Structure formats: C-alpha cells, structure tokens
C-alpha cells in the first residue's frame, strides 16, 4: 500500500514537473496509466506495449474528434466500413475494445464503432494497450484496448473554445471545473457541425452529408472520507445527419432524402473504498444505450422509402478488489455481470444476452529488475458458452537504458447480435441473411413447407457458433541509449482461429440463397512496431514511428502450397498459379506505415508549432482478377502521405490562446478509394480560460 501511495505522489509530482517541460510526443515513462493492469502503474513498469496520448498533444495538434488523434499514432490506421474505426496490429475495428473511463462503448455498425462520435475536448488522456487484453476486459479486447480518460474535477476553471474551418466546420466547446473540499464537479458541452463535402458532384447526395452533433458530459467527485470516494459521470451524445441518395438509373433518377439520428448515453457510478491499508475495493455500475433511427422518403411524392431503427442497451455491475500481500505481491480480482439487449428493424424480437465473469491478476515484483503479471478471466455467456482468457507478461529491466518485456495471452470476441439474431430478407436481390440463433427454426419451417432445395452445410453445424479467439505474443524493448534519445520496439504475432464469416447455407426452391454466419477462417497477423523520440533542444523535439505488418489467411496459404490458387495474367488474361510472394495478404492492411513529427514549444514566449507527416503504405482494396485474393498491383490503393501543421500563441498570462492549423495541407485525395479522406482543411480557433489555474 505504501508503495501505491508513493507511486501516486510520485506521479502527481511528475505531472507537475511535466507541466513545465511538456514533453509532447515522447512517452514519459513516469506517467501513470491504468488500462494495462487495471491498477495505477507508471509506463515504465508495464510489461506490455502501451501508448499514452496526453491532453497537451491533443490540444497542440488541434484534434476535435477521436479518429483525428488516433490516426496519427504509430500502427493505427483509420479504416472506413460503416463508420471510421481503427485497425490495430492488423485487426479490423471490431476487435479493439473502446472504453470511456474504463467502461465499454457500444453501438457498432457492422462491427465498427464510429470514432468521430467522440469529442476529445473533455479528454485528459488516451491510453492504448496493444495485444489481447481479454484477460481483464473480456470480449472485443482481442487486438487491444483504447481507454479514453476524461477530465477529473480539479481546481476551479472554465474554458470556452471556438473553432471554424473548411467545409463550414464549426466547433464550440465550453467546460468548467469546480473543486470545493470534498466535492468536485466537471462539466463539458460541445457542438460540432459541418456542411460535409462532395467528391461526386454529378451524382445526387454528398460524399459526407451535412451533420451536427452535441456532446454533454459531466463528472462529479465526492470524497466521503479520505478512504471512501464516489465518482458519478454521465455523457450524452446526439447527432443528426442528412441522407440523400439516388436509387434510380442515370436517365430516370429516383431521389431519396431523409434524416438519420443517433443518440448515445453513458452513465457511470464508481464507489472506491480503501478498506484497510492493503485492501482497496471498487464498486462500479454502468449503463449505456445507443439508439439510431432513420426515416427516408421518396422526393417525388414524399412517400416513405425506408424507416429503420436500432436500439442497444448495456448494463454492467462490477466489483474489483486490489490487495497488497506485501509490496512485492499485488492481487487484483473482480467479478461482474453484463446485461445486453438489442432491438432493431432487422431483428425479429428484442434479443437479450447475459454474461457473468470473473477475473484475477497477480503482480509479482521479486526484485528491482523483474516485474511479472499473470492473470486470467472467465466469461460465461448466455448464448455461446464459456471463454477462458489467460495472460502472462514479464519485464526485465537491465538498467535505465534498457528493459525487455514479453507477453503471451489469449483474446476473444463474442459473436455479436447481428451474427446471432439478424433476420433480413432482400426481396429485390433475392437473398436472406439469418443469425445463427434464428437459422434452425427458420430452416425447419421452410423445409416443412418444401421451400428448401438444398442445405449446403453440415446439418450438425446449423445454429452452431463459437467466439473468435486468438493467441498472441508480444516481445519488446524500451530503450534510452542517449540522454535525449528514447525509443521502443515491439514484435507481435497474433494467431486467430474461428473467424466468423457469412456463408451460403441453403438454397430455396425459387433459387434464392440463404446466408448465415459460421466460424470459418484462420488468419495470422505479425509485425514490428517502433517509435523514437529525440529532444533536439529544450524547445524542439522530433519523433518517428514505423510499423511493418503482415496479415494473412491460412487457408489461402494452404491453397497456394497445394497449387490450387490461380490468377489471371493481366496481359493475356490467361490463368497462371499464384505464388506465396505474390499473395499480398488480407485486404485493407498496409505492409508499411509510419509517421514523422516535429514539435516546437517555447513556454516563456507562449509559442508552439508542429508539423506531422503520416504515411500509409499501399493496401489491398478488392479483388479484380477473379480469385478473391489480393495478388495483383491494380488491387491495391496507392500508398500516400498527409502533412498536418498547427501553430498557436498564448496571450494574457495564458488566459487566451489563438491557434491556426491545416490538416492534409498538401491536399492529398483519392476520391474513389478513400472517400473519408477530405482534402485540405484549414482552421482557426480561439480559447479563453478563466480560473485559478493559468
């Protein structure tokens, strides 16, 4: 316990010191993070890869939404599939758990949680843990975890920020902070809106339609005693976006217009009690809901084209204990229960899940050099069964200049509501998709009516689905070879089995196909990530990051080895065999990604400026030669780099900050392949601060 307090004091001290020097992009190893072990630990003491993004960095680069700040981090790529999500260690967005103050966000469309739903003005720091964290967090934490830590009430201040930029994008934020003895209150209000942009002016409907949204957040701290503390926080997000498209043909347009609304609510209460000097407990309750609705009308006669809705509820109750056997043996254990439900226009009923779970973690610090964390979690799910997710992490510190760490763990992702309960028929295109829980009864019914021509899968597999699982290895080093040079390197490997894919399961007598979901493929991802920071002078810092990635489908490799995978020679269109070297791996993954950043800051003069180059190497877009596999140059989106700059000045004892910036300054665009990459965006902002903290 003593250590814990010391640690805390040290971290507070270091944060205070840091406020002076403000290292922006480098990972100050004395910073405290909570996500990796669910206990407060300094970065240097975490035996697995962790990235920390501080508020100062977010402010100085001028990010407004979460996707903007995450896309500048090494090894993370923004991928657009029903929203903008992040790809981590080569995994699609659905495999990264997104937390806000330690609690999961819900509301994924086709697996992607739209990151632009999250304003960053109320964020204190973002912690990114790479590698599976299901041993602490359960489902979805297969590639890693992004934990958004919002501001804590401290001091008494208020800010007002206004920003305007290209595409009539406006952002208005205000926040206040009150601290009186035992009570702290934080409040945040944001309005963000844009007219969007259009890469295809010839067609009806913009690439990004006009939208506006509001974020309200509040957090309340109350300390009953030194040892008993309560935190209650709430967030409310509300967005309206236009919707315009054409369902007709070129000569006979048939225009559809309407509005889509999204609502996102979180409510959290945490009671933290220091029971004895060695024993701390935390009772956490959490409720979140994600609701969308959309009503679309024919422009010709204002009749209804389509009305859809989606409502998801998630409630979690959790109790965590932290116990210091001695300073060298720390135990963490937790139990919890999750209630989830979804109702949607494409589901038959209100569908419910329940998960009971328990986790355990043992931290052992045998001496100065070693740091060992072993743990695991059991999740019992009401629909698909039980998952066990162990993890072991080790760190050995040779000196201040070098420490090595290694971890092995298991991650999983539960089948989602769509994969279990979807009940969708497209009468125009003539197919149906059923979730695995719906399929058996529907198939039996259709068979009884003699409507099934043929069942294409093993009947014992009908309705059978398991979680997707991975076994992952991370091996890394933190280096500080020179006083001003600091870096880290991490090798990773993820072996994933039971990936869920949609597949034709039956054909109806009228020829229509029935699709459902099955555990089909196995993939692996592996690569190297490295980050380096050099402090050129007291005011100037440069940093560089790079990730090499391979992500491949095992079945495809087997097919290649058997000589059973072919492609078409682009010149003659004739069939030739695909070799291993021609296989480019999974679509959407860049083999090379990198960034280079320069940050300048002169605290006395109150000036700061920065330039960041973000590179994303070529990645597969889609098959063009008939074998459904990435193996030909024209199946790639060309690699590209974007340059982002920002500069600002603090005035009147830091009560006023003026800032200008340009995102994608060189105006790189690839309208056909990357419609979510807007062109050059110029902006200017101004911020007022009042209160007792300059």
């Amino acid at each position, binding site marked *: 316990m003593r250590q814990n307090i010391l640690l805390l004091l040290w971290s507070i001290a270091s944060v205070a010191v840091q406020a002076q020097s403000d290292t922006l992009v480098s990972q100050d190893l004395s910073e405290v993070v909570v996500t990796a072990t669910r206990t407060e630990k300094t970065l240097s003491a975490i035996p697995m890869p962790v990235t920390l993004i501080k508020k100062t960095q977010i402010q100085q680069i001028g990010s407004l939404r979460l996707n903007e700040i995450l896309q500048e981090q090494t090894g993370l790529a923004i991928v657009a599939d029903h929203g903008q999500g992040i790809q981590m260690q080569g995994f699609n967005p659905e495999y990264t758990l997104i937390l806000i103050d330690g609690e999961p966000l819900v509301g994924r469309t086709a697996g992607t949680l739209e990151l632009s739903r999250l304003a960053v003005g109320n964020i204190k720091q973002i912690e990114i843990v790479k590698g599976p964290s299901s041993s602490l967090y359960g489902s979805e934490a297969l590639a890693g975890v992004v934990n958004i830590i919002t501001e804590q009430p401290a001091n008494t201040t208020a800010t007002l920020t206004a920003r305007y930029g290209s595409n009539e994008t406006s952002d208005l934020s205000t926040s206040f902070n009150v601290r009186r003895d035992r009570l702290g209150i934080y409040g945040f209000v944001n309005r963000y809106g844009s007219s969007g942009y259009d890469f295809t002016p010839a067609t009806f409907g913009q690439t990004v339609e006009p939208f506006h949204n509001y974020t309200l957040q509040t957090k309340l701290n109350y300390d009953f005693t030194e040892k008993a503390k309560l935190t209650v926080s709430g967030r409310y997000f509300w967005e309206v976006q236009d919707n315009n498209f054409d369902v*007709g*043909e070129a*000569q*006979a347009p*048939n225009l559809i217009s309407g509005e889509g609304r999204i609502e996102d609510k979180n409510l959290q209460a945490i009671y933290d009690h220091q029971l004895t000097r060695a024993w701390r407990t935390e009772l956490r309750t959490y409720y979140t809901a994600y609701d969308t609705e959309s009503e679309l009308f024919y422009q010709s006669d204002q009749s209804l084209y389509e009305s859809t809705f989606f409502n998801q509820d998630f409630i979690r109750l959790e109790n965590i204990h932290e116990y210091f056997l001695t300073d060298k043996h720390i135990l963490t254990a937790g139990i919890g229960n999750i209630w989830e439900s979804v109702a949607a226009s494409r589901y038959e009923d209100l569908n419910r899940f329940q998960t009971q779970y328990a986790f355990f973690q043992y931290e052992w610090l045998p001496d100065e050099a070693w740091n060992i964390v072993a743990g695991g979690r059991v999740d019992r799910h009401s629909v698909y069964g039980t998952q066990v997710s162990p993890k072991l992490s080790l760190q050995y510190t040779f000196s201040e200049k070098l420490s090595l760490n290694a971890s092995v763990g298991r991650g999983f992702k539960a089948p989602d509501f769509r994969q279990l309960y979807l009940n969708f028929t497209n009468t125009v295109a*003539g197919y149906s998709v059923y979730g695995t829980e719906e399929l058996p009864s529907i198939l039996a019914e259709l068979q009884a009516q003699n409507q099934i021509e043929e069942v294409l899968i093993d009947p014992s597999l009908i309705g059978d689905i398991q979680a997707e699982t991975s076994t992952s290895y991370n091996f890394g080093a933190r280096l500080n070879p020179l006083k001003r040079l600091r870096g880290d390197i991490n090798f990773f490997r993820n072996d994933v089995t039971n990936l869920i894919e949609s597949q034709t399961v039956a054909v109806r*007598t*009228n*020829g229509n*196909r029935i699709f459902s979901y099955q555990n089909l493929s196995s993939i692996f991802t592996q690569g190297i990530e490295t980050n380096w920071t050099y402090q050129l002078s007291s005011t100037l810092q440069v940093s560089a990051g790079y990730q090499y990635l391979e992500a491949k489908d095992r079945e495809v490799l087997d097919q290649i080895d058997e000589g*059973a*995978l*072919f*492609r*078409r020679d*682009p*010149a*003659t*269109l*004739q*069939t*030739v*065999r695909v070799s291993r070297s021609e296989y480019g791996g999974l679509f959407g993954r860049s083999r090379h990604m990198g960034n280079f950043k320069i940050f300048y800051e002169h605290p006395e003069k109150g000036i700061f400026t920065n330039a960041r180059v973000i590179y994303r190497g070529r990645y597969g877009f*889609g*098959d*063009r*030669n*008939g*074998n*459904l596999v990435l193996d030909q140059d*024209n199946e790639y989106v060309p690699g590209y780099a974007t340059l982002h700059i920002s500069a600002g000045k603090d005035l009147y004892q830091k009560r006023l900050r003026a800032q200008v910036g340009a995102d994608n300054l060189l105006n790189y665009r690839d309208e056909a392949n990357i419609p979510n990459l807007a062109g050059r965006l110029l902006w200017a902002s101004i911020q007022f601060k009042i209160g007792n903290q300059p």
Partner: protein
Amino acid sequence: MNKLFFRGLVWLMVVGLFTACNEDDDDPTPMPDPDTDPIAVELEVRTVTDLPADPFTGEDDMGRPVGKNQFTFYSLENQTIVAREDSASSNWDIAFQGTNIIINGGPDRFGEGGAYIFEGTFEELQSVDPTRFIVDGVDNDVNDSDLAIPTGSTNGWYNYNPAIQVATPIPGRILVIRTASGKYAKIEILSYYKGAPESPTNEDESRYYTFRYVYQPEGTNF
C-alpha cells in the same frame, strides 16, 4: 467513349499479336501420344472475341437494364455462331446468355453434349476424364436451372464482386466440354466484357464473352 475505343484498339492489337505468335511457333500442344491418338492432329488454340451473350438492349419498368433473354448458340467445331432458328439441333455445342452457360446435352437438349469444370491451368489439362461429364438438367427458369456448368457467383465459372459490380471469370477453372457430336473441347473464359479490358469496371459493356479453346476432333487428349 474515347477511352473505350482506345481500350478496344489496344485489345485488338494484343489479340492480333497473340494469335500471330500462335500461328508461328508458340504451340502449346504437347506431342501426341501414338497409343491413344492414332491419328496425330495438329490442335490449334482458337480465340473467340466479344461473343455477344444477350447484351442489354433497354430497361425494364424499374429502370434495370435488360436484354432479349436469348441465348447465343455456338459451334466449337465450326467456330461459328449458330442461328437461333437452328438451335433445336445438334449443330451447336455451347450457348451463352448473361452469365448462364448451357451445353447441348441433357433431357431438354438435342445433342450428346456434357461438361465438367477442371481446376488448373489451360495447358495442364492434357486429357479429359470421360467419367466426370454431367449434362444439363431439365429447364425451369433461368435462375433455377440444374446446369452442368453451375450458375451463380463462385459456383461455376465466375465471381461477382458486388462492391465494384463486376463479374470476373474465376482463374483456374477450365470448362471441359463434350460437344453435341461427342467430341471434346477445353475452354478458358478470359473476359465477360466487351473488348476484354484488363480490369473491367461496371462502366464496361458486359455480356460479351472472350474465351480461348482447343477442339479435339479425335480422342481424349489435348
């Protein structure tokens, strides 16, 4: 329009070069086996370019493109299109309508035809396996036919990519055909689009087959 024309021109040049090469010396035909092929016949690789397969002629009430819903009948032996009026005969071997391919064999057909799909390259297919041939089933409607060359994306000869709305012949699928008169042929479909562009888009005109084939008038070896 210019682009299409240009592409077509390039394609013609490529095809021209290709066939020119073949005529000279680039003969992929293996040495005939005297035991099974008593009469050694010089087998040529024939290329058929832009065979129309019911191309779109207009739109239906919903504005969707439609053709005449008619097959184009083809004689592999004579290398000619067979008139529709002559289709109730064994004068044709294979017929195309959209992505549907039928052969002249089966209860609703007129010849001794059959087909199966060989997986591998065109050159690797050296001899037919007479036990593998199947025939077309009874015709119902176009979308529900039990055909020797199955319809539908990934089932038979093509993959359809809904993201770019393009049908691509699956590489490595060679159609092995028994003709209406009981001879054998092997076919590799190269393109479904007019001018056989290298990377077709949904702007290209579909329902035009380009394929190469070898017709074997004697025996089972190619």
